[in-house]
């Protein structure tokens, strides 16, 4: 674990850059992590996915699988991959300030 300054806030991150504490997250941090991962601008559709991931994690303690993400977030799988080409679940979790999803599906 190391401390990094993202969008002006000091936050704890894991070696892959996922926030250790979801409470340290804010929307400015989300924008900056997105820029650092090849997404220039977070559109409403990006936000819909990021917020869905974050809410599910905070409510259930685990991030949703890509299957539930496609079924329940309101953004179908094809579009998820257009929005987050480097991996929707992983990247939306990183941007949303929650730990890396550990599911295989």
């Amino acid at each position: 674990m190391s401390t990094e300054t993202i969008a002006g806030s000091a936050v704890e991150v894991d070696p892959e850059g996922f926030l250790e504490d979801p409470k340290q997250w804010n929307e400015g941090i989300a924008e900056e992590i997105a820029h650092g991962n090849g997404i220039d601008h977070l559109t409403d559709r990006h936000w819909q996915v990021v917020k869905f991931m974050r809410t599910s994690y905070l409510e259930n303690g685990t991030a949703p699988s890509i299957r539930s993400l496609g079924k329940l977030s309101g953004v179908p799988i094809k579009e998820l991959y257009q929005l987050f080409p480097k991996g929707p679940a992983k990247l939306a979790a990183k941007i949303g300030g929650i730990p890396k999803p550990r599911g295989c599906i």
Partner: protein
Amino acid sequence: MSDTIDKVSIIVSRGSLEGVYPGLIMANGARMEGIEANLFFTFFGLDAIHRSRHNHVKVSTVGEPGLHLATWLGGFPGMSAIVTHQLAKKMEDLDIPPIPEFVEMIADSGAGLYACKASVDLFGLGPDDFIEQVDGIITVGEFYSLAAGGQIVFT
């Protein structure tokens, strides 16, 4: 050699449930990590993309010591269907999709789906026998061109 994997081509050669899932999980998992993925279905693996068979892929209950079921019992009529049904229930609990949905998910993730031409000819099949997500029936040579620059995994 690079210490990251950027592209994988996965060959699915078996037509049993336990033979098909590993390849699908690896392809889906690759796309989830942002890795480019292609799936190549050959021999009995073609059932996983066969329009009328992909929903009926079953666990093989004979000759699999890992199932811990006596071979004579595994050979009983209906045994394969029972074990498949039990496994399907467990998979649904773990949010693992059934094969037709899983294959569609993988296609939607941008992975390429291909059928092996030699096997298609051998079984007397044609393009209409496959689900619409299949990108083509290709030769082994074409497969190698598609796989160029990445890893090849045979399952």
